[in-house]
């Protein structure tokens, strides 16, 4: 239904600099699919979505909707847009019209429906999103969740072939997120074709048929929800899905600033709510590893990774310029190693020179 090839979007900042948001996007959306776009913030997920109905003008590339090139200036974009609904982060209900008039304005103006017909259909749709008794209200009298549901109903009033959701729950209180997601879920179950940009990972996983992971201006990884969430193949996807936070430091010699490092570790643990017990443990292990075990025949790199999703904490000590296996060359009975083993759940050396400690 929608085909995107080599889409590129460059923003020009007021200072005259160029900012490439989308480098080379290639993707397809078929009828009946629910495609979700996820990725780190600032990777152009919303921009991609807005390019699909040309609210953003792409710099180059091809977007075809039902075989029609929408970037061709001979194509009447307004006709295409009638069949592509869009739900905005900030709802964008027409502030001067009642909810029902919001729903009837476009069907009456564009589809030539009579007022009675449009209102009957409008009330019906308000019923499906649970807002039948709010028909006569103004948008400002509604809560955020109700506004977003009304906005979805407004899209449906145009009987679109596809609905684009641009972070539909980002501007909502946590208490109102679920009512909006329930409506979207309902639409998915009824076979509506949708393209969703969202940060609600659990929801995206449940509702999508396919997921596009956007990173660095391209579709970095693509697959079913199971593939992306259970077995992400690429490192950035993995880090994003498991919400991995890292702390990295490099030490040239054994005479490094130990207490400065302790400070950093403490701050890192505090930031992700790990508590003093864990940070003491990490500090102990770091001290024993760096002062007792690592041979320092070159710089040593320390990487601490914390996955917010699994709550797993792991530390990797990498010794440059070594050909010897560090754990093998360390005395089994050495006090340092015994302490490290005691404090951690596992210590191993998957490749020569790198010691991994899991807590």
């Amino acid at each position, binding site marked *: 239904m929608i085909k995107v090839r080599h889409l590129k979007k460059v923003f020009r900042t007021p200072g005259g600099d160029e900012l490439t948001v989308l480098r080379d996007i290639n993707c397809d959306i078929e009828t009946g699919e629910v495609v979700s776009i996820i990725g780190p913030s600032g990777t152009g997920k919303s921009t991609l979505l807005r390019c699909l109905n040309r*609210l953003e003008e792409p710099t180059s590339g091809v977007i075809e909707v039902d075989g029609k090139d929408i970037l061709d200036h001979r194509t009447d974009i307004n006709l295409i*847009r009638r069949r592509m609904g869009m739900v905005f982060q900030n709802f964008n209900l*027409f*502030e001067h019209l*009642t909810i029902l008039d919001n729903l009837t304005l*476009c069907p009456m103006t*564009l589809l030539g429906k009579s007022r009675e017909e449009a209102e009957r259909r409008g009330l019906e749709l308000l019923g499906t999103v649970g807002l039948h008794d709010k028909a006569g*209200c103004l948008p400002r009298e509604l809560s955020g969740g109700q506004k977003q549901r009304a906005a979805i109903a407004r*899209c449906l009033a145009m009987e679109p072939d596809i609905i684009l959701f641009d972070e539909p729950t980002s501007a909502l209180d946590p208490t109102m997120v679920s009512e909006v997601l329930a409506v979207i879920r309902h639409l998915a179950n009824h076979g509506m074709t949708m393209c969703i940009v969202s940060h609600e990972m659990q929801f995206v996983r449940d509702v999508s048929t396919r997921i596009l992971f956007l990173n660095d201006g391209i579709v970095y990884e693509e697959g079913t929800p199971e593939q992306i969430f259970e077995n992400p193949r690429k490192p950035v996807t993995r880090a994003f899905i498991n919400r991995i936070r890292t702390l990295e430091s490099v030490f040239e010699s054994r005479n490094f600033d130990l207490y400065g490092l302790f400070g950093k570790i403490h701050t890192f643990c505090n930031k992700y709510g790990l508590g003093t017990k864990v940070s003491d443990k990490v500090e102990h292990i770091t001290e024993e590893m760096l002062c007792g075990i690592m041979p320092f025949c070159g710089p040593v790199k320390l990487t601490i990774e914390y996955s917010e999703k699994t709550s797993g904490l792991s530390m990797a000590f990498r010794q440059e310029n070594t050909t010897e296996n560090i754990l093998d060359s360390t005395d089994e009975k050495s006090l340092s190693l015994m302490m490290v083993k005691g404090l951690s759940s596992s210590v191993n050396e998957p490749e020569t020179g790198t010691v991994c400690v899991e807590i």
Partner: protein
Amino acid sequence: MRRGLLFLIAAVLWLSSCTGRKAQDLSGVNCVEDFKGHSVAVAMGGSYDLMLSEMGGIDIIRLGVGELLVAVEKGRADFCIIDQYQAGMLNLESRGLEIKFKNILKGTAGAGFRKDDSLLCSQFNGYLMGIMASGEYDEWLDEWTSASDSMADASLLVPKHEKKPGGRPLHVGITITYPYLFLKENNLTGIEVDLFNRFCEKAGYPVDYEIYDFSALIPALNSGKIDVILSHMRMTEERSKQVLFSDAYIEGGGAAVCRSENGVTSCERAGIWSRIKESFNNNLVVERRWKLMADGLWVTIQISVLSIVAAVLAGIILCRLRMSRRRMVSSPTGLVIDLLRGIPLLVVLMLMFYVIFASSRITGTWVTVMSFGLYYGAYFSEVFRTGMESVERGQWEAGFALGLGKFQTFLKVALPQALSRIIPVLKGEVIALIKMTSVVGYVAVVDLTKASDIIRARTLDAFFPLILVSVVYIILAWLTGMGLKALENQLTPKSR
């Protein structure tokens, strides 16, 4: 802070003490030379002004004709000088005033022509010579001076003049100066008007009189707005440099008016109600002067409505250009808007009338509408712009995303929202515009304010016409406000 406040109060007290004058002994003043050391109110830019200025040592207070008597009444000036014919006609006693002495500051007056228009001037001089020889001149003067002195029914003397059809009319600039040129029952009449009408009838010119401020007559003549000045203009050396005067046809003299010596103020003499009744009678009923006011009001309404329409149109165009994404269009428009807003409206109006449209025969009304349209268009455009910018980008995007075109989105989504924010701000501007139309007297349009000026120049009563005019403007502003409020309510979104 407190010190500043004290200073302010002190300043106000000092200023107010300056405005009130102590009554002075005026019994020793019996001729013009005795004015030295006294304050004398005269019409601004008139010949009395010039003559007294040359003498020096006199505290000259320059005012509009209508305010002269009031200044003496309220003690702001010891004397005022008005035309002796006019002085004889006013009921000065009832206002606690009297004529101290007259026949002063005499001078001869003539009609003024453009320097390069000697043909018309000599034609007029020829006519004067003719009637002086035939005796018609003496007849004419006798008829008028006796009528003025006895205040006989001057309606007999209303010139029986009929407009000659066809031909370019002579444009004659006048200032209402009783009894030389004045309005009676809404018809222009007076000694000089009668004379000039006789001339035109004889010479076969259609004639068109336009009422100007005295100080605007010479610029209007030289810019080609008018062909003749007929305004009891004294022939001074200075004026002769710019105006070609005809032979003198009348001699005028002034009267010095001061407060009655018995010092009884009029308030004590007559009850406040009878005074108001008399004012009402004098300013509105006599000679059907209300008709002049009504005509002025109609002109004010016409000018206001046309100017508002023009300003809205200009505002829309300027706003559209200002909001253009092309720098080449938006920046010059911004500059024009800033320029227009930086010049006082009166100056814009005068520039348009005396400079830009100087040589065209376009009437003051249309120049007014154009000037007000441009000037308020600049203000309106900024109101429109802020109104349009207050509509969030998201509202437009929602319209676009649903398939509405640019114009449809503007019409159905952006405009209704912008309007409900524009109207309340515009209300103030529109009312300001209506009130500002009171300056159009400067370009020879007789609106409500000018009409009251004309009446004041005749009755020399400042209070009543000004209060009446204020009330009328308040009602106009109030009605406009109500209308716009109703429109605003119409546009405010309501839930059902």
